[in-house]
């Protein structure tokens, strides 16, 4: 079956330097890279092999940190929410970013008045001259720009599929913070149950079937970053949740040891803690909603509804 040429260009990795160093062709998944990738041989030799392979996979080594475009700027509450996967992706790709935390209603309204929030919503990321909203739009753009995709549309599709699955799981956790306290135990049990019966077995099987280190195409991708993030989030709810998933455990260790991710996992990074009552209050203040409206809006939109009953309903439980 002939595949049409992907409209997404292969020049993901741009360099500002003249091509005095060797052209690295066909290094990434069979795509010919149209522009030179600069590797400083000296610094390359100092890096242990495993790490250098990861950097190669990530796209480039930029030996001169000064030669960089303006940093992306993230606008969100001071907490995980829907921005956290974006922070992970940037951190894993070694991209420095700035953050502005929304703490007042006035600031939020100003962003709206200035026309930066297309649908009046955050997350908002200022990047490459664009004011991007919509989490998956931002993630897709960053993944295409900063890191490797699969070797073809087929593999990119797998990445999308896996990423969407893990995002579903993470959003369940993110939204649980906004539910009534009385339901907390029940919600945690639901989420952990979903992780153990629906999501983790799938990824354990993927890793088992191909026996490779990464989820897709034997290369580090967005899907790996998000799976790690999801795994860690569920572990915060239930420390032993990985006990039946040895390959996921190994995966977790492996991905956590990638230098950029290791750094992100250390104290003092821009990684945010799990949502607490302060976070919930801040969000409610800025967005000015009551509990009732919140449960209508965000529980209904974009999240997989908690299955309240055991019966199958076409519109909720089994539609994705």
């Amino acid at each position, binding site marked *: 079956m002939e595949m049409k040429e992907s409209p997404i260009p292969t020049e993901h990795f741009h360099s500002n330097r003249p091509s005095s160093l060797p052209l690295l062709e066909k290094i990434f998944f069979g795509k010919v890279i149209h522009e030179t990738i600069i590797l400083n041989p000296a610094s390359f030799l100092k890096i242990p092999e495993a790490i250098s392979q990861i950097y190669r996979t990530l796209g480039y080594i930029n030996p001169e940190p000064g030669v960089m475009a303006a940093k992306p700027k993230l606008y969100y509450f001071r907490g995980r929410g829907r921005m956290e996967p974006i922070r992970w992706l940037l951190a894993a790709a070694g991209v420095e970013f700035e953050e502005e935390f929304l703490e007042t209603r006035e600031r939020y309204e100003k962003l709206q008045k200035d026309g930066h929030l297309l649908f009046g919503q955050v997350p908002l990321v200022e990047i490459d001259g664009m004011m991007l909203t919509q989490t998956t739009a931002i993630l897709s753009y960053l993944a*295409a720009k900063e890191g490797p995709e699969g070797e073809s549309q087929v593999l990119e599709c797998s990445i999308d599929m896996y990423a969407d699955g893990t995002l579903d799981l993470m959003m369940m956790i993110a939204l649980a913070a906004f539910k009534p306290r009385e339901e907390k135990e029940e919600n945690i049990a639901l989420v952990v149950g979903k992780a153990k019966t629906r999501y983790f077995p799938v990824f354990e099987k993927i890793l088992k079937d191909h026996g490779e280190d990464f989820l897709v195409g034997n290369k580090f991708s967005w899907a790996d970053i998000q799976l790690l993030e999801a795994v860690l989030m569920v572990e915060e709810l239930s420390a032993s949740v990985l006990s039946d998933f040895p390959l996921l455990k190994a995966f977790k260790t492996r991905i956590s040891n990638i230098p950029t991710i290791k750094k992100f996992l250390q104290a003092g990074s821009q990684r945010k803690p799990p949502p607490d009552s302060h976070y919930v209050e801040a969000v409610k203040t800025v967005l000015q909603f009551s509990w009732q409206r919140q449960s209508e809006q965000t529980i209904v939109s974009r999240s997989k509804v908690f299955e309240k009953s055991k019966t199958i309903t076409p519109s909720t439980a089994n539609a994705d």
Partner: protein
Amino acid sequence: MAGKPKLHYFNMRGRMESIRWLLAAAGVEFEEKFIDTPDDLEKSKKDGCLMFQQVPMVEIDGMNLVQSRAILNYIAAKYNLYGKDIKERALIDMYIEGVADLNEMIMLLPGCPRDQKDAKITQIKEKTTNRYFPAFEKVLKSHGQDYLVGNTLSRADIQLVELLYSVEELDPSLLANFPLLKALKTRISNLPTVKKFLQPGSQRKPPLDEKAIEEARKVWKF
């Protein structure tokens, strides 16, 4: 030549309808296998072709794809409806996510408890006229072009027009103050593939009416 894509879903719009629209607009013929009973669904799950035990699922190019977003992304990229570079794609993604959010609210209405339904409809109308329609009208006004992104037909146009039809079914007056959206709707509806899809006898699915909901309740026991 590979076979036609095969769509696995219930015989209704739900989360598969956007995929039907996109394939149809791209001029791609497709087959459908309907899940009519809980047993059908169990069988599909047992066959192991539903990655997260959920539908939609689309058999295409040797893959069993699930997750509607992943499916739509693949189809859009394959048929060149996803912009010419990653920046255009980012804009397209931004717009279609907004479309998806509003569409989700409308899609979930039939499952809404009867006593909450009116409030929900009011909320949807309010969001439509105050948040979503103005945003898209503004985009069209800002560049004055025939299509949302890159002066070329993309999935953003198709998915937005699909939404406009759904909103129209809810309340035709909502589109009244958005001339550019109205023009886009006419323009896209007149594309030969879309025109065909809009005619009776196509694979487009009707909205859920009370009768259909009742029947679904009996079969699926909810």
